[in-house]
């Protein structure tokens, strides 16, 4: 027993429990195993009653050294890792990575391949938003919406599985194209899904968007002002929820996005409700993009000629794509050869999380959960 007690003190030394600034405050560990941190995020909360005084995210529980791994192997061998950072929307990660090398080495991509990339990426974005809507509502105590969104999500996953071969951690894009062509069945199923999803919005709106409890829980909660968003480098739907119409697909168009007519939904108040609305509207915009892409889909090859053993030129290069959670940037420094000297991945969830301490000061615990849910954090992406 002696020993045990001693060990306990040693352990609690790790916690800053000794220097609580105010004796009425106390610390609450939310996570790393907690129902609403969605993965292994730990938030150390300094609390005053039910009010959060100072929330501090503690990271690293899911760290896998992805960036370091990239420095140790042939750059092609890193490809499957890209799909494992943001598991909820892996294709944009694939996209950014292959596009980076296409830019660096000046590789042409056939038009059909670019269209396929856009279609599948947008499908993946929709899937990710489905997951988010469900998880956010789960955070707020509604258990049913997640099953409805998962019903829709399964439709898309089936479509994606048919072409990519997997359901979650895709490794589908290749430098110079994609690894498998889409067929008429894919087009047909995707069109059927678009129709179905448009009808399903009705259920979302009735059950969630217009629900007084949901509105009360999210309106005016977790307001990120445009200024604050800029200061923290917040991106994606969180940034757009604050009213800043920044979307890499529009502002720095890549692939064939300029060919499509779509809008960037923005919020007005920057609260959780706006972030919800932005994502819901983004699903509709993605559907529009997919629809147009299917109409314009050119014939041709789906995988251009890429040299098998590729040597990179020396120099550096970066590429940004709009992932489901915001701007994703790959920055690569090459010293020649086929192993990158350094690969920096700037992930959206990380900067979105960094706003949390300022955002959630003085909030109720329940609001913190709702505000954190509205950020759409994917922890393996933050930790990498």
């Amino acid at each position, binding site marked *: 027993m002696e020993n045990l007690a001693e060990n306990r003190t040693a352990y609690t030394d790790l916690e800053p429990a000794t220097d609580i600034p105010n004796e009425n405050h106390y610390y609450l560990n939310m996570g790393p195993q907690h129902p609403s941190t969605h993965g292994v995020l730990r938030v150390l909360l300094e609390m005053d009653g039910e009010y959060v005084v100072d929330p501090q995210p503690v990271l690293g529980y899911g760290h896998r050294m992805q960036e370091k791994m990239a420095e140790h*192997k*042939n750059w*092609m*061998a*890193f*490809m*499957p*890792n890209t799909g*494992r950072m943001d598991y909820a929307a892996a294709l944009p990660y694939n996209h950014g990575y292959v596009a980076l090398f296409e830019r660096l080495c000046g590789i042409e991509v056939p038009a059909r391949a670019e269209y396929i990339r856009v279609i599948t990426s947008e499908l993946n974005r929709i899937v990710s938003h489905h997951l988010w809507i469900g998880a956010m509502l789960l955070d707020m105590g509604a258990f*049913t919406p997640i099953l*409805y969104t998962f*019903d829709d999500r399964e439709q898309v996953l*089936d479509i994606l*599985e*048919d*072409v*990519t*071969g*997997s359901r979650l*951690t895709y*490794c589908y894009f*290749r430098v110079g194209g994609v*690894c*498998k062509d889409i067929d008429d069945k894919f087009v047909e199923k995707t069109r059927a899904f678009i129709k179905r999803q448009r009808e399903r919005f009705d*259920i979302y709106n*009735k*059950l969630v968007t*217009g*629900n*007084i*409890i949901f*509105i009360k829980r999210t*309106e*005016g909660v977790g307001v990120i002002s445009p200024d604050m968003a800029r200061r923290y480098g917040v991106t994606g739907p969180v940034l757009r929820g604050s009213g800043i119409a920044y979307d890499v697909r529009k502002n720095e168009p890549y692939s064939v996005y300029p060919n499509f007519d779509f809008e960037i939904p923005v919020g007005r108040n920057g609260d959780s409700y706006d972030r919800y609305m932005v994502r819901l509207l983004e699903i509709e915009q993605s559907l529009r993009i997919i629809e147009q892409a299917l109409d314009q889909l050119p014939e041709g090859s789906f995988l251009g000629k890429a040299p*098998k053993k590729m040597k990179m030129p020396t120099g550096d290069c970066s590429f940004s794509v709009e992932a489901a959670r915001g701007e994703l940037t790959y920055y690569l420094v090459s010293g020649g050869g086929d192993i990158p000297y350094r690969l920096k991945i700037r992930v959206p969830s990380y900067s979105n999380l960094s706003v949390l301490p300022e955002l959630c000061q003085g909030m109720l615990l329940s609001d913190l959960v709702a505000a954190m849910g509205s950020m759409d954090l994917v922890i393996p992406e933050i930790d990498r």
Partner: protein
Amino acid sequence: MNNRGYFGELWFGAKSLLIGLNVTIKELFRPIVTVQYPREECEITPNYRGHVELVFNTETGGCDCIVCGMCAKACPSDCLVVKGEKKEGEKRKSLTLFSLDFTKCSLCGSCVETCPKGALDYSQDYNIAGFTREEFHYDLIERLERRHQQPLAAAAGGN
């Protein structure tokens, strides 16, 4: 949006709650969409990428692998081991060992894509579970032979 007033809020709220109840009661009587796995199973797409598997060549009655080792080299996770030896009187090497450590495989497909002979393909096996890691160290030649005894299954696996 917030100034609906005392009664306006009540009216709006009550209406939204009733609409919500209406949605769920309707769903209650609609057919279920899930299947009771493992009693029923979903149909799985032929494009599903399981672990890699040697392709059975119906003409030669074996596999096409020429033991070039390209797949093992391309594998980012080093989970393939290919060994072969030259038997007397034969021109090419013949395969003696082809093992896959599925615990490390990331299902990236590099091996399948690099194989010059198309000797590798994905299996349709998704029902994999085991009690030890060693159960996932597959001997692909043995698996091929096992499938070979059931030629129909082998053809389906080959896609």
